[in-house]
């Protein structure tokens, strides 16, 4: 049965076991959860955003639970690229899963420098670029909110790597598909859709924001319908693969993303609640395919049938 389902996924010549990844910032550097999950069951680990130097991150409070989700303002806390290469990569590359290094920086030069440092390293299979970082040159506006800057950044990174280059897009823009088209034109191999949505929560007794940075990034099941719509929009605008991200908790959620046009998915916030979510999602997609006579998971990509509405009468209660 399930042995016959083809789950593998290839990106620019790099092969991943399946189409289920864990999202950046939601799985550490891959070595924190080894007591609880076997990473070789999933397609890959996207690392916590790596910057040139260690970053301490924001003061407390950094997270707050909201209805069906959470807001975070971690502030890109990370050990820095050199410590990652020295202390984490030797272990992570032996886990039998793909390693996607996520990079954060405050200037294009810094992005390039971090990428070049990792390009030499065996065991880094691909790069994902976090463009939702404040750009020092532009007074703190994030790269990802400017289409020309996002394109310029992609163009600067492209010639510096032979590995797959994935740009993680922010949904906090008017037309995300314009950004997707721009990075595709600049040589990106894939896009990740979406990063968190900007949100706010206020304590009414004290009238203070619940996060130290006032606003933060909303993630979790609450954002899934928004993420699905963005994946649908982007996947119709570009021909490069889309990693679907946003509120996936189980295999059915993941299959929705594939049907909307994602070529692969990333599990984020759900890892905090249950670190084995991605393992369950990967197995669940496979059994769904067996059950539906689908021989290759790729047959689900963009396979939503929009020709007629399905009545939900018997399931909505």
């Amino acid at each position: 049965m399930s042995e016959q389902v083809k789950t593998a996924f290839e990106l620019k010549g790099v092969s991943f076991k399946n189409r289920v990844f864990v999202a950046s910032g939601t799985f550490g550097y891959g070595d924190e959860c080894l007591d609880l999950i076997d990473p070789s069951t999933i397609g890959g680990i996207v690392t916590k955003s790596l910057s040139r130097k260690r970053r301490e991150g924001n003061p407390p409070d950094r997270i707050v639970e909201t209805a069906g989700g959470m807001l975070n303002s971690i502030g890109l806390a990370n050990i820095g690229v050199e410590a990652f290469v020295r202390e984490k990569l030797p272990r992570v590359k032996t886990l039998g899963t793909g390693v996607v290094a996520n990079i954060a920086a405050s200037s294009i030069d810094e992005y390039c420098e971090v990428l070049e440092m990792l390009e030499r390293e065996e065991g880094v299979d691909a790069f994902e670029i976090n463009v939702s970082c404040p750009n020092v040159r532009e007074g703190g506006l994030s790269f990802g909110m400017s289409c020309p800057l996002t394109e310029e950044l992609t163009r600067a990174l492209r010639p510096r790597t032979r590995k797959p280059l994935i740009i993680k897009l922010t949904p906090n823009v008017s037309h995300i598909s314009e950004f997707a088209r721009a990075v595709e034109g600049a040589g990106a191999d894939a896009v990740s859709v979406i990063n968190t949505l900007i949100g706010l929560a206020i304590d009414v007794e004290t009238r203070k924001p619940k996060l130290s940075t006032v606003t933060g990034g909303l993630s979790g099941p609450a954002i899934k319908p928004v993420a699905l719509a963005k994946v649908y929009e982007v996947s119709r605008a570009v021909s490069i693969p889309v990693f679907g991200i946003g509120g996936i908790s189980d295999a059915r959620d993941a299959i929705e993303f594939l049907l909307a046009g994602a070529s692969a998915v990333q599990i984020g916030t759900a890892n905090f609640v249950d670190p084995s979510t991605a393992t369950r999602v990967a197995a669940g997609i496979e059994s769904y395919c067996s059950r539906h006579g689908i021989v290759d998971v790729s047959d689900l990509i963009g396979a939503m049938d929009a020709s007629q509405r399905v009545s939900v009468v018997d399931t909505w209660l």
Partner: protein
Amino acid sequence: MIQETCQVTGTELVTEETFVVSFESKRIAETIQPGQFVNVRSWFGSDPLLRRPFSVYTVDRDRFVSILFNVVGKGTRILGGLRKGDLIDVIGPLGTPFNLNLNGMKTAVLVGGGLGVAPLPVLTSRLKEKNVRVHTYLGARSKSQLIPSFLENLSVATDDGSSGFHGTVVDLLERELPELDQTPVALFGCGPNPMLRGLSALASKKGIACQISLEGPMGCGFGICQGCPVRLSTGAEEYVLMCREGPVFDSTLIEV
């Protein structure tokens, strides 16, 4: 660290507002160290979304573990409604425990404020196994909120004077400390941040070793979300994680 679905073995209301929920987990009962915590969830779906972290309150016969909490939000409301036989998903043991191997410690002074009593029973029994004399100081708003079980040589302070010393538990301790301080002594505290600040200040004034266990918002409970920073007292803006480097810290190393 393990993840396990456990059966609830009992729910008890120990004050007007404080629940003790017990569950069966041989593996956690056998491996938990004092000051460590579990991160639990007994509901499906996404509201509430995150697990809820609790110190382990008691360990019984190497099989049963309990947690202690007040109903203050969505998660604790559901947990307070658990009945014998219900299931609870548990990740643990988590965090860095109290260090019991202090050089020359003969007497341990345990200080709990409010629900900060939670880690003290397990701590008490492990200290006694090491032949350390234990004195306990417990503070609460009033008599009805005191949870005095499983503790040794107990002294009590209440904000309203309805039981024991009228005032804060740290003030009470400061009065009595000279008598305790005849032998090498160490402080172990858990409670609200203002209490821990007072305790840390007292410890540094007297030059006594002091470990404090913090409470605060947490996401995953084991370091992947980076959501629970605690500022180090280095003067620079440096953080460690409450869930991983803590929840127990040497009081001189962090800012509460």
